[in-house]
């Protein structure tokens, strides 16, 4: 029993990371209005930025968060300029394919620049264990959950309470009407895209710390997992995407516990297929509106 409880805790902390990736993903898809496949690489770059910050400067957690957020933000600007800016009026498959191609480019450049081998991720905090009702929870798991909750709270407050958040949501609903309100649509879209990328980058750092390793090709599966997490949430609904991420994490770990670790990724995708068969619109409720 304790074993399964522990796997549940593992699933929750891993799910929290997926949730952060999915929050970033849903933010991007919401504001840009197009599906992206560069998110995995954004996550990877965030992880490497933190890796180099830890290696060259100090093993300080806040430094890691800031560098990974900033590096992914910068990559977000490049992605916006390359894949989206000129394609808002084009057929939607063009930016989609553009993001796929760009992600391949980043992945391969990363292998050249960072080296193709797996490296050990420095640990910014000491690994310790706390016993809660017989379940061993380690400090990294607590740290992950705290960081994810605080980042998503900040995003929520910015999104719902500030003028800037209204601007961002207006742009994600109707770009032409937003322009008529005097909103600089291009800039707002870019910043929204960068916020999503930044959150993905921090998630990448957390994941590298959690697995204690880092690899240039880690992005592929992670990008897909953030994609399926937000598909579970209805693609652009941020809280539902976060829930989707947690569900994927829990499913993976419980599946591993009951069956085998080698099917880890299978569980996530089978779970997605099942949810989509039963409830094609995802777990979120559609916002009502007249046509």
């Amino acid at each position, binding site marked *: 029993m304790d074993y399964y409880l522990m796997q549940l805790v593992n699933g929750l902390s891993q799910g929290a990371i997926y949730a952060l990736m999915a929050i970033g993903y849903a933010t991007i898809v919401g504001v840009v209005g197009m599906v992206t496949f560069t998110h995995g690489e954004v996550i990877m770059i965030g992880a490497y930025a933190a890796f180099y910050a830890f290696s060259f400067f100090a093993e300080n957690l806040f430094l890691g968060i800031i560098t990974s957020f900033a590096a992914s933000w910068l990559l977000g600007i490049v992605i916006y300029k390359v894949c989206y800016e000129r394609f808002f009026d084009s057929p939607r498959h063009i930016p989609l394919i553009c993001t796929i191609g760009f992600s391949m480019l980043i992945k391969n450049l990363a292998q050249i620049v960072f080296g193709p081998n797996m490296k050990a991720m420095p640990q910014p905090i000491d690994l310790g264990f706390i016993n809660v009702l017989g379940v061993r929870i380690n400090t990294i798991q607590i740290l992950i959950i705290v960081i994810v909750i605080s980042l998503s709270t900040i995003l929520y407050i910015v999104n719902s309470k500030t*003028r800037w958040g209204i601007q961002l949501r207006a742009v994600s609903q109707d770009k032409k*009407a*937003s322009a008529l309100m005097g909103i600089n649509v291009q800039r707002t879209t870019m910043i929204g895209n960068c916020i999503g990328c930044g959150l993905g980058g921090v998630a990448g750092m957390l994941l590298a710390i959690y697995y204690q390793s880092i690899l240039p090709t880690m992005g592929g599966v992670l990008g897909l997992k953030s994609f399926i997490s937000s598909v579970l949430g209805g693609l652009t609904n941020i809280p539902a995407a976060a829930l989707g991420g947690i569900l994927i994490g829990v499913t993976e770990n419980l599946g591993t516990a009951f069956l085998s670790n080698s099917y880890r990724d299978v569980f996530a995708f089978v779970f997605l297929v099942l949810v989509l068969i039963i409830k094609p619109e995802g777990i979120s409720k559609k*916002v009502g*509106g*007249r046509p």
Partner: protein
Amino acid sequence: MLEVKNLIVNYGYISALRGIDFEVNKGEIITLIGGNGAGKTTTLMSISNLVPKTDGTIIFEDKDITHLPAHKVVMQGISHVPEGRKIFPALSVRENLITGTFGNKKMTKKDISDNLEKMFVLFPRLKERVNQGGGTLSGGEQQMLAIARGLMMNPDLIMLDEPSLGLAPIIVEEIFELILRIKEEGMTVLLIEQNAAMALQIADRGYVLETGNIIMSGTGKELINDERVRRSYLGD
């Protein structure tokens, strides 16, 4: 105040506007009338720079705004209430109104809350629904929200695109009374309407558009009494 010179807009091979000229003076209600596909909406869209112009110049308060991007046009003090309302369905009524203030950077927090109060006096129905999502309002309420949103930035010129479209006659009348009130407050109105009879009654001057050309212009009274206008647009 607003001067449009030789405006030409083409959609692919189709020419929507074939070189129109008109001007709007301060404090006037100007209306453009015309049938479907005459180019009324295109005219407003090209003033706001949402569609590319092939040729022409647009001057607003002695400033050439022909090539300004859409959001900068708004910041000159031109508010455009688009056809089909285009409110933000997932934003609340209050948030929708706040989006209307992004076009005027000089507004303080107090100006915004004052304007909100003003809108709630003008549109008591919006006050009742202030926290409701914009998409849940009825058609008439959405139109009122769209106009209120356009007024929030204290524009010098407000361009209304078919404010009466698809609304019950009693609400249409309410909206036209409102347009007169907007004028009394010193704003200039550029009104586009299919409901030519109503529009010409309240307009100071009007222009008649047909297949991308202005074929007639004059004061509201002149046009209402003109034989051709009566036959084509007023159904006599």
